[in-house]
């Protein structure tokens, strides 16, 4: 097949074009989706943090957020469903100089791949895990996930979800993460700052970003796209250092945002090197 002639660049360039595989555009994200905003925050944070982007790898699993790895113009690995964290673990322990960014969704990181999350946090693998939480499996058509609120309607819970969702910051804290924050995609600046902090600190860092999925979640739960954003504005409260046990996502009450954990402890690589790579 003939290789298509490269299209002439459109001027002026977007400020993030150097970090985006523009040949992969347009992206697959639906109108009203929150992933693009978080992706943009992530790229801004990567630039602002001053980390060596030649030594930065973005790793994603499967799902809408999982497309992140394919769009970022750094070394990237689009892994199988649920396995972003162990792929990233392998890269990090083999080459500790790398900055690892895991960019994926709630279904990928906390259902099919949930086991990996708790163990990477426990071992304090030095990586930044960004979870775009849209409360359902968006890509496959809006099925119930491990983060779907109780009673919410999805294609596999037409009468409402009988299960309780994970409180992700609590899970991260209990598993041993050294940095835990939560924002919504409306809090763009805070998301960017949080990710920037993660990229320049050591240890297992976790940022949850609540984001709307109007096509598959909103539509079935009578949440119009702008209503969701209004809810993100009106029904959230920033409370840094809040008790992780009180961070359930229930927009009927207040949803707490902020940085909840920021502590230091030796990373896996540091402890491992001390024990096994004595110089």
């Amino acid at each position, binding site marked *: 097949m003939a290789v298509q002639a490269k299209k002439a660049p459109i001027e002026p360039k977007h400020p993030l074009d150097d970090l985006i595989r523009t040949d992969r555009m347009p992206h697959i994200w639906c109108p009203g989706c929150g992933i693009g905003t978080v992706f943009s925050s992530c790229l801004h944070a990567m630039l602002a943090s001053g980390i060596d982007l030649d030594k930065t790898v973005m790793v994603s699993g499967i799902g809408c957020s999982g497309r992140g790895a394919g769009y970022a113009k750094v070394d990237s690995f689009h892994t199988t469903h649920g396995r972003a964290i162990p792929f990233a673990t392998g890269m990090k322990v083999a080459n500790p100089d790398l900055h690892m960014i895991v960019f994926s969704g709630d279904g990928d990181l906390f259902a099919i791949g949930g086991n990996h999350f708790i163990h990477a946090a426990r071992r304090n693998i030095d990586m930044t895990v960004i979870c775009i939480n849209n409360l359902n499996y968006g890509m496959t058509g809006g099925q119930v996930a491990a983060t779907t609120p109780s009673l919410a309607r999805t294609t596999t819970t*037409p009468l409402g979800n009988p299960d309780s969702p994970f409180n992700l910051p609590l899970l991260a804290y209990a598993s041993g993460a050294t940095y835990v924050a939560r924002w919504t995609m409306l809090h763009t600046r805070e998301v960017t700052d949080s990710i920037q902090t993660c990229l320049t600190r050591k240890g297992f860092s976790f940022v949850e970003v609540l984001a709307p999925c109007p096509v598959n979640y909103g539509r079935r739960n009578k949440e119009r796209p702008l209503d969701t954003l209004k809810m993100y504005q009106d029904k959230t409260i920033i409370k840094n250092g809040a008790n992780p046990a009180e961070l359930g996502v229930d927009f009927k009450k207040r949803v707490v945002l902020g940085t909840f954990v920021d502590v230091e402890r030796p990373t896996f690589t540091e402890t491992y090197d001390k024990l096994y790579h004595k110089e």
Partner: protein
Amino acid sequence: MGERVGLEVSIAAAEAVKMANVDVIAAYPITPQTHIVEHLAEVVADGELDAEFIPVESEHSAMSVCCGSSAVGARTFTCTSSQGLALMNEIVFITASMRLPVVMVLANRSLSGPLSIWNDHSDVMSIRDCGWIQVFVENGQEVFDHIMFAFRVAESQKVSLPLIVNVDGFILTHVIEPVEFWDAETVKNYLPPFKPVNRLHPDNPVTMGAFGMPGIYTETRKAQDSALIEAKPEILKAWQEMADLTGRHYKPVESYHAEGAETLFLTMGSIGETVSVAVDELRAEGKSVGQLSLRLWRPFPFEEFRQAAAGAKRIIVLDRAVSMGGQGGPVATEIRSVLYKEKNMPVVTNFLCGLAGRDVTVEDYKAMFEKASKMSKRRVREEDYILYGVRE
């Protein structure tokens, strides 16, 4: 018989599962299987089906749940594709060795990588030796019929083995076709209630999944292999009874203008219907060509296959998966071996085609026929396989 309606094949499959009155459904979403599972979630929620629907956290859990529910005597169904099956792999083998009659619809999709959601048979070929009964279907009606067949055969006390119905992803699952439903009376006559041979029940405790030391492992393997081979009479009986009830006759190896044909195509799954059109056109041009379709893949129908292939000079085996580093496609490799001791063994020409949803048309099959006809009639190494249409 019931009504003949036009609907998406996935929905027809889910309706058949509903009519089979399953007790437990456990599944994890994966394209292109989702519509089947979503429709089942709906019919359970609407009260049309009294079953437990369990949306688990991964396919590994889905198959584990299925083992559990089947072990306590519940009629159990699951559905997956590709990577989902790969993740289930560990438990898929356990299901068969525990003789748990779980029924699975496998919406066939290629395995990664590269990541692909489109149709071929690389998923099912990866579990060829797992011990499940495995059948392939060509159209929506066959899907509906074979879900009834699946429960009937799997749960038969003489069989007690899990069964996979292979349905080509998108090409079949997402098309709208006319399907003749069964009426409730026919289902009742065909499919008796599930009475497990062994089940976990406090009145009569048994242990499943126990340790097998070297002193017993070989014997359990022999028993399992025999069980699968000996399932064939029950499979044939179930097809015969279905023919009596519905008028549709299914066979382990279907043939189309095969008798007396010099060249035979061998197909599996939905490409069969396209190939039959190619056969018609080639025959109209005076070519001596016919077609076999392998419906029963496991247990392999040796006798029926040899009979159906008798007299042919060349068999064009169409594989939908690559056996990396081997002899091309897994089906052709097996067919060569099945025919090895035959007098006047036909030349087996192997085309690998339609990988990851790449379209293969009537013209393509005719081109394959022409290409095969020009090839040597001797068995030479270079002829082992051709990856049809590959750009090099």
